[in-house]
């Protein structure tokens, strides 16, 4: 579904990502790990259009997407969450999700201004759909509170929910378990499986190795912006390069 080919990004003299290749097949959870500062989030920013790579190609469903704007990439079917929580804090939980549906909705300026019948119908449907999605991630009971009032773990869930609202084919999750307690992590694990069942591919950055080893079908390891290793989790766990990168050493 997503194929990244030799992507390089430089900030002046600093090479943030160098010749990274990777692939996310349909219906799989692919993990991206690496020490802090390895360029994982930068890599997400490249895929989601925040940065344009200096070299290389990104192919999504047969279309080259490098250089497109973030909103265009969202429209093509790649949603994302953020490492630092980026919710619309003063909006309610359900409104956050409806904003996530932006590209799925059609009503424009004038139909909104005059509240046409079509517009009202679409709005009602959108909010119903948003509530269903909140049910799906387990936040239905908080729907009408402001997003800023949720607990940290709930905010993470809301980020995922908002991402799912655009009906993506692929969702990029940037450290979804950060700040979650043990119970929430188990719930997140279940949620990821449920997302897969909807036939949405997942590319995930996560530091929690236990979670990662359990959920990921395939792992890529980044270090100093370069791909250090790739393989199924059991291989990665034993890879001496990876152990060295994480623990230091020769």
């Amino acid at each position, binding site marked *: 579904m997503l194929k990244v080919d030799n992507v390089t990004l430089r900030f002046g003299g600093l090479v943030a990502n160098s010749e990274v290749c990777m692939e996310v097949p349909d219906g799989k959870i692919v993990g991206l790990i690496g020490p802090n500062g390895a360029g994982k989030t930068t890599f997400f920013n490249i895929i989601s259009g925040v940065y344009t790579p200096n070299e290389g190609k990104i192919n999504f469903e047969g279309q080259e997407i490098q250089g497109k704007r973030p*909103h265009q990439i969202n429209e093509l079917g790649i949603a994302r969450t953020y490492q630092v929580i980026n919710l*619309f804090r003063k909006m309610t939980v359900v409104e956050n999700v409806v904003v*996530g549906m*932006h590209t799925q909705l059609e009503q424009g*300026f004038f139909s909104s201004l005059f509240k046409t019948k079509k517009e009202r119908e679409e709005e009602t449907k959108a909010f119903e759909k948003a509530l269903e999605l909140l049910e799906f991630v387990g936040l239905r009971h908080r729907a009408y509170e402001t997003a800023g009032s949720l607990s940290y773990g709930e905010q993470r869930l809301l980020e995922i929910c908002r991402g799912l609202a655009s009906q993506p084919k692929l969702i990029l999750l940037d450290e979804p378990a950060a700040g979650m307690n043990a119970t929430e992590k188990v719930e997140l694990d279940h949620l990821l499986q449920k997302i897969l069942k909807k036939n949405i591919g997942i590319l995930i950055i996560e530091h929690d190795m236990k979670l990662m080893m359990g959920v990921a079908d395939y792992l890529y390891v980044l270090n100093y912006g370069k791909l250090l290793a790739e393989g199924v989790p059991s291989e990665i766990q034993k890879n001496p390069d990876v152990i060295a990168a994480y623990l230091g050493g020769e």
Partner: protein
Amino acid sequence: MKELTQKLKSKSIVENLGLLAVMAVLPIIFNASGFSYGITILVFICIYIVAVSGLDILFGYSGQISMGHAAFYAIGAYGSAMLSRYLNVPVILSMMIASIIAALVGALLAYPASKLVFHFLSLATIAFGEIVYQLVLQSPNGITGNAVGFPTKSISIFGFQFSSNFNVYFICMIFLLLFLIAKGNLVNSRVGRAFIAIRENSHAAEGMGINVRKYKIIAFATSAYFVAFAGGMYAHTVGYISPDTFTNKQSVMFVTMLLFGGTASKWGPVMGVVAVLILNELLRSMENMQMLVYGALLLVVILALPGGIFGVVKDLVNKISKKGAM
């Protein structure tokens, strides 16, 4: 969910009817008590609420500051006055055309300005306000009447002249209700949510598929339309316009009213306008102190009441209703 939207809808209808009732009763009281100047103040309240609601769409909802909105007010006022006098366009139509022109100018300004953030944007809009002011003051061939000013026609529909105080107030009240309804519709829609999302977090908004630049431009143009229409209302009710209404002071006045009343709401602009205009009347005898008082007011609001008057009222209502529930 249906219940909730239904509830919101009926609440907004009740609010509008309430506003209509108050606005219909006030002039009768003023008339009966012989305080006919009160009606003139009401007309100005209508005009300013339309303008400040327009600024609210830009600043309150989409989070972009403008310190040059007097420019759009001027485009609306002079545009409509000139269209009706030179080209004989019927007055209400001329107000709409002038407002469309203002919206286009706003979009044109927003195109480069959408890349600017807060303080740079306020500088750019101050400059824009100054440019329009100078153009009005020193127009080519004196088509705006320059410093002398420009006489305007009164509003008329099919030959019926809205020239008496009462008539003018009536038509301004209708305009006000239409604009308030339009604003309410817009902010509670896909477009309005995009504005708020941009204000709250423009990176995340872009990540959610919102074309941030496009929506910033839409917000600017819509805001310009509102303010320009208010400018048209002003021009055709006072009968005579001159450049000193459209100085930087006017832009500051709009912002003061908005901040004082409270941003991103329907009632914030209403309360802000009413409060500031009443204060304005009270300070009429010491005109040179006005700016000082506004400055002090603005400082108090920004430091002590970030939600404005409406924010305070809302908190009070919430507290009382909570106590009632207990």
